[in-house]
């Protein structure tokens, strides 16, 4: 029994199964983060005063640059695989993992500083939504690292058996990764700047 359209696109929809699947998944993610951003708006308009300048714009800015760079290396990984260049594709995948890890380390220092000052999520609604949003985003980063590590490590054997399917998997992971990046592009101004 073969399930059709796992690799090649179905003519009438123009999509392979996985690609449609990842787009639907991202749609649900939009609703998840959309609900949290709505929460942020509701809490903020309902607050008597809203704190400003609590977060380090420098650290946040560096992390923004890192994530954008990781999105670029993710695309390069896919492009190299499309050009049938496995080793360079894998290299870019590994660079993406490294960048994502640097992002998390950076985030750890930010978190540690706030916890050190007693500014945990219980401190105020601002820190509550800050930790919830960035924490959930951080979990998404970790999820991305796990998938990329699988593709660069134990999952890489698929390249020999079915290079098209492997390239597709990197593409779908990339779509997810760009989404995670995009969420941060919204989080940075909303939490750090406004």
């Amino acid at each position, binding site marked *: 029994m073969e399930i059709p359209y796992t690799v090649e696109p179905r003519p009438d929809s123009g999509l392979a199964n996985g690609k449609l699947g990842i787009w639907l998944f991202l749609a649900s993610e939009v609703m998840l983060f959309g609900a949290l951003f709505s929460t942020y708006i509701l809490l903020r308009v309902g607050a008597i005063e809203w704190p400003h300048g609590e977060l380090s714009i420098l650290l946040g800015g560096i992390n923004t640059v890192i994530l954008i760079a990781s999105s670029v290396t993710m695309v390069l990984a896919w492009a190299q695989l499309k050009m049938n260049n496995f080793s360079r594709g894998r290299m870019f995948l590994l660079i993406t993992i490294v960048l994502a890890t640097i992002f998390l380390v950076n985030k750890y220092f930010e978190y540690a500083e706030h916890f050190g000052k007693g500014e945990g999520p219980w401190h*105020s609604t601002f820190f509550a*939504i800050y930790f919830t949003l960035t924490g959930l985003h951080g979990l998404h980063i970790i999820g991305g690292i796990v998938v990329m590590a699988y593709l660069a490590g134990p999952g890489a054997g698929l390249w020999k058996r079915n290079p098209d399917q492997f390239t597709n998997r990197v593409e779908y992971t990339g779509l997810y990764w760009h989404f995670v990046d995009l969420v941060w592009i919204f989080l940075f101004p909303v939490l750090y700047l406004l």
Partner: protein
Amino acid sequence: MDTTATGTAHGHVHAHEHDHAHHEELGFWRKYVFSLDHKVIGVQYAITGLLFLLFGFTLMMVMRFQLAYPGHPIPFIGSLFGPENAPNGVLLPEFYNQLGAMHGTIMVFLGVVPLAVGGFGNFVMPLQIGAPDMAFPKLNMMSYWVYFCGGVTMFASFFMTGGAAQSGWTSYPPLAVIAPGQTMWLFGMIFLITSSLLGSVNFIVTIVQLRAKGLSYMRLPFFVWAQLVTSFLLLLAFPPLEAAGVLQLMDRLAGTSFFLPSGLVVSGKPLTVAGGGNPLLWQHLFWFLAHPEVYVLILPAMGIVSEIIANNTRKPLWGYKALVYAAVFLGFMSFIVWAHHMFMTGMGTTISAFFQTTTMIISIPSVIILTAMLLSLWGASIRFTTPMLFALAFLPMFGIGGLTGLPLGLAPSDIHLHDTYYVIGHFHYVVAPGTIFALFGGVYYWFPKATGRMMNETLGKIHFWVSFVAINFIFMPMFIQGLGGMNRRMYDGGMQYAHNAGLLKWNIVIGIAAWTLGLAQLPFILNFFGSMKWGRLVGKNPWDATTLEWSAPSPPGHGNFVTEPIVYRGPYEYSVPGAAADFTPQFEPERA
């Protein structure tokens, strides 16, 4: 030449043997427990769902004793609950609240949805579209097991210190944030939401990508359309509740105040939290899911009923296209009606006016669907089989449930009816004699496909008629109680209120009817398991039906179809003038 032919034949035989051996390699665990086959997963979902329906209903039968005879010890099973929940067999108010909250949660999230979507959707949908399996079989297996973990978490919460959740299935804060038991509920919900999410992605991809040759969208059986719209609702409406669940967990575990306003006083002591939160935020996020959830409960039921009606009237469904467009519109509108659950929160007349308008608009597609099904009966010579009886009962029951919803959708009348037994009667008419009857119909209808055997008609008819009478004696008196102003969620029914004096006697009627309904399920249970062993053996198409699932063997093997199915026509070509039989299946080639 000769040797080549022998070689090929030999190779073929060898390949066949190998194939056969491969099937036998699947041990018990991979075949029945961690199966990747959509049919096995569908049956797993269905049986787990049915068990949870029984469990959730049992909770209510216990509560109904307390309401009918407040303060009396529960006979037979009262001692089972332990002295901390029911000393001397008399329910404590806290335990009553746990039963109420868990009844709602279990019926909706662990019973009806898993049975309607996970069970019927998984089993029937790929067969109806001519697919070998779901698009992502491993994801499908994972959906079931994540759901199972959610079920175990919910069930286990009864045995934790502090017991199960007791703030209602709606879990409104601030009560839900400070009451015991809620943390397990939230973890359980996160499991269930994740499972629904994985499932809905899988369903949509399967329907879009794996339709058989010739099966265009307008040739899909209405059941598949219903599942498609349902999946979109699950996909897009559940994440906000997941977000809300995370926020409530943060409130409980990390000490945040998302839902706790400043200056909250509990039992005479001010709460030591930062405050600044908003309890209404939870209600918005909750109902943003929970209103589409209503359509998640009803759409698959409508899908099942339409299949059964077309088959047993031996006529095409009346207005197939209208049904499809109405279902899609219904799905879309269901996202913008949620705040009609919140007219009493003081959110303002402007917002109320908006949500009243959308609520009145959403009743139009529901009426279209119900009307189309009703008109399908016109002039038919109906076969009164057991599934058809359940499908026929669905129509007036859903009609009563829907029409009694109109006064609740208008803010002025809702002010009187809000939080009374009228509301309970209203939504139970939609979900219990509506959806659950449709689901029973579906079990009787597709049982021969799943097992290769018919269910017993006599037992089925006993099951139907007793259930039908009993269930109306449960929910019809609730309208009387509710119109009289009797509040829901009262431990003793609200004995201290003078206006309830004449209404409490109905609780005895409702109680007796509920226990009768419980007894009426015995023939079903007997029939379900007995027919697996002793039911009449049937062929591929025992109901003379037209859709694709009836071209596969009963039960279908791994991969479903013996030959690749090709579709030649619409789904409901019954009694076509000039045709050889009174049904022309989708898979029957045109004759030259």
